[in-house]
């Protein structure tokens, strides 16, 4: 195990050991050190593939979770598979444990990460079922786990893209902001990135590539007060934050995490007339947010457009997208990021007449006499169906990440409603033995007159580990019936549920769908019949 003496390649087993070490380490610093050590030790292309795998940057269309399940069905009784999968909570891990050890235990040739990636890439849906068993037979259970995770994605080892980039920067002592800038413009296994950082080569030449720049983010303004002489206010629109980039005549749209979502919004790809990097909110035309003047539909409407790889003409017509601009980072070869916000704002305002109003508008500033007046305006955000306010220091440069005292987000207070737990489902991953996902309902009428509960939402956050244990115990002791990983429970536990907004929905029997529901408080003390009715929730719709 370890490095192949002859070729120096990093073996799958070594990558498997890294994955396991990451799984069992909760310390961020320790994770950084583990990844950095791996990146320093591994050669190209293994280290690049490993990095891509850790950050979900690999995709092998021929191998899906279902491919693995199908392979297992030929080798394990389906009932035993289902019981095992349910207990373990992860398909890759279950398969790695249940894969039959090959009868012939002759020593198998070693495989490098690079070789595995090469072989996985060559698979088609037709050949995968024939070829995968041979690869799995060459590995032990940890190796199989790594291979399946590599093939199907979703590592779940507690490594965000940001953490991996930080580890990369740490490994080769380069600035993380530069890593982030180059990263998104390059493709796995990132030879140019390693040539620059690890081998002291030239920085990747990306001058003419429409590449992603790290976003500037905001801290929540908890109970603070700011001076409006120093801070400008604007609405926090409820869409998705995007960066629209044009370079060398090519336009790309990136999400907050740096994912390229251009294909989802084709109508925005030939409307930016200048080379620029702009920061804004992607929205769909409508009047839910801020009325006619606001011009934007609810997030619910935008959701119809998200996550699609191909977009129909009807979609484009029914849910036309546009970008409401917040900021300018680069414009016609000039980098504005180090300039104060007020200068960038003036530049952006100057740019607006050159942009087509069909696809761009400017996020207007919210004027108020003083902070108290602004607070009153914020209180109307609910009626306007807007998330809240942004406060930006007038002298703030555009810097990556969250920097104290430059930008604040000041969200409106959440809505609250009392619901009754109806179903509980076992979690996944770390929570696989706990009932941690709860479906709750409100009364369809007067509970004392025999009205029923109707499900209104589902939440799996907002409680502490201690509370989770307590709820888990409640679920187990109050089970009415079981459906696989789901238990129906006695209707007696009340949750105070916090949520950002509620919308009409055909997907639920109650006709309602909540946005960002989370458990606010667990009302062990409150009798279920005192929970809220559907009507109370319906009255909060602002669509």
């Amino acid at each position: 195990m370890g490095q192949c003496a002859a070729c120096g390649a990093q073996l799958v087993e070594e990558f498997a050991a890294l994955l396991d070490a990451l799984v069992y380490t909760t310390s961020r610093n320790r994770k950084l050190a583990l990844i950095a050590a791996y990146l320093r030790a591994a050669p190209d292309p293994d280290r690049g593939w490993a990095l891509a795998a850790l950050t979900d940057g690999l995709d092998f269309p021929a191998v899906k979770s279902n491919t693995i399940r199908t392979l297992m069905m030929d080798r394990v009784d389906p009932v035993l598979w289902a019981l095992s999968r349910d207990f373990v909570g992860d398909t890759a891990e279950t398969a790695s444990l249940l894969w039959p050890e090959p009868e012939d235990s002759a020593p198998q040739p070693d495989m490098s990460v690079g070789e595995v990636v090469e072989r996985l890439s060559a698979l088609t849906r037709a050949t995968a079922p024939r070829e995968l068993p041979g690869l799995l037979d060459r590995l032990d259970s940890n190796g199989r786990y790594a291979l399946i995770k590599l093939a199907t994605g979703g590592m779940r080892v507690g490594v965000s893209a940001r953490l991996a980039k930080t580890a990369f920067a740490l490994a080769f002592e380069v600035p993380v902001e530069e890593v982030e800038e180059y990263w998104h413009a390059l493709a796995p296994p990132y030879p140019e990135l390693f040539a620059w950082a690890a081998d002291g080569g030239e920085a990747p030449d990306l001058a003419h590539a429409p590449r992603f720049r790290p976003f500037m983010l905001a801290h929540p303004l908890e109970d603070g007060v700011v001076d409006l002489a120093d801070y400008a206010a604007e609405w926090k629109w409820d869409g998705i934050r995007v960066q629209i980039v044009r370079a060398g005549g090519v336009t790309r749209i990136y999400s907050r995490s740096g994912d390229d979502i251009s294909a989802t919004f084709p109508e925005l790809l030939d409307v930016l007339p200048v080379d620029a990097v702009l920061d804004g909110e992607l929205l769909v035309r409508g009047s839910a947010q801020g009325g006619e003047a606001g011009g934007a539909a609810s997030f619910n409407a935008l959701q119809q457009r998200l996550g699609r790889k191909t977009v129909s003409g009807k979609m484009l017509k029914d849910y036309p997208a546009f970008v409401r601009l917040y900021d300018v980072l680069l414009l016609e070869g000039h980098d504005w990021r180090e300039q104060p916000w007020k200068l960038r704002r003036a530049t952006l305002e100057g740019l607006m007449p050159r942009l087509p109003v069909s696809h761009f508008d400017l996020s207007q500033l919210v004027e108020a006499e003083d902070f108290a007046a602004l607070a009153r305006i914020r209180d109307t955000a609910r009626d306007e169906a807007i998330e809240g306010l942004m406060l930006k220091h007038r002298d703030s440069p555009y810097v990556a990440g969250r920097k104290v005292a430059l930008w604040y987000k000041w969200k409106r207070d959440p809505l609250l409603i009392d619901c009754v737990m109806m179903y509980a489902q076992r979690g996944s991953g770390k929570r696989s033995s706990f009932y941690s996902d709860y479906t709750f309902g409100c009364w369809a009428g007067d509970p004392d007159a025999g009205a029923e509960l109707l499900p209104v939402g589902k939440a799996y956050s907002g409680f502490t580990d201690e509370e989770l244990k307590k709820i888990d115990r409640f679920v187990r002791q109050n089970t009415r019936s079981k459906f696989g990983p789901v238990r129906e429970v006695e209707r007696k536990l009340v949750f105070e549920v916090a949520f950002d907004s509620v919308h009409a929905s055909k997907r639920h029997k109650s006709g309602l769908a909540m946005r960002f529901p989370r458990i606010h408080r667990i009302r062990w003390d409150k009798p279920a019949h005192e929970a809220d009715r559907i009507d109370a929730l319906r009255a909060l719709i602002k669509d």
Partner: protein
Amino acid sequence: MEPPFSWIRPEPWGIHIVPADIWVDPSRPVARALVTHGHADHARGGHGETIATPATLAIMELRYQTRAGAMAAGYGETLDIGGGVTATFLPAGHVLGSAQILLEHAGERVIITGDYKRAPDPTCEGFKVTPCDIFITEATFGLPVFNHPPIGEEIAKLLAAREANPDACILVGAYALGKAQRVIAELRAAGHHETIWLHGAMEAMCRLYEEHGVPLGDLRLVSDATKDQMRGHIVMAPPSALGDRWSRRLPDPVTAMASGWMRVRARARQRGVELPLVISDHADWNELTRTITEVNPAETWITHGREEALLRWCELGQRRARALALVGYEDEDD
């Protein structure tokens, strides 16, 4: 004539041997009890009369401070327990003193395994395969994903972690009865003769094991140690102490846990375990299925654990089987 095996009746709180009016591992106090082994979920206090192996009785005395009503049964000794029923205690290989109980009545033979394993264990006698008509087995690790590796591999991992962390200690969470002593004995067998530091709750049980002929080497209490004395050493504690304030007195502990559940990553993560050691005193899937095959009973009853999967395995092999819904048996820490 009464129908076959009607003399033995599973109830939610234990298995009732009707003609003798005696219960096996009851989870509530009864007049007469047969106890398979000393773990608290099987050996409860407060029975009028308790029949068990001498070591199990010693463990119960340590736990409940009383020997009242205790009656010893050595391995292989056949006792007349009344009502025309005899009971024979046979080694189960689970922990010191653990037994399967062979019950015979009117030519019918029933074995209740209690908890058991087939892997060798230097701290207790090994499981004895014995033919019977009804085999009442546990199924704690009754899923095919459970495949306990040879203990030597896990001990080697523990020693390697100790080697790699000379300034820290390796804190091993292990059940205070059985698991702790087995891990210590295996460490000794692997040539590790340094002091092993114990949580106070483990001291008395380790002494009891030594009195029963299981040497455990140099054991000392954490409460008598300075932080520096424990650097580079192994510390043993019950699983409940791992995340407890108690562990703050240790020098930068690396948290390990010796348990069959460590096979599943999510289980180890839930407990904040950094070094999972797959060591169990229960039969794994292969041991369970191999044992049923070797005993080859007419019928298999499954007491507790993941009984659905074992039932399914029996069904696939066309073996008669049923699951008993017994309450009160726990499997969380083993």
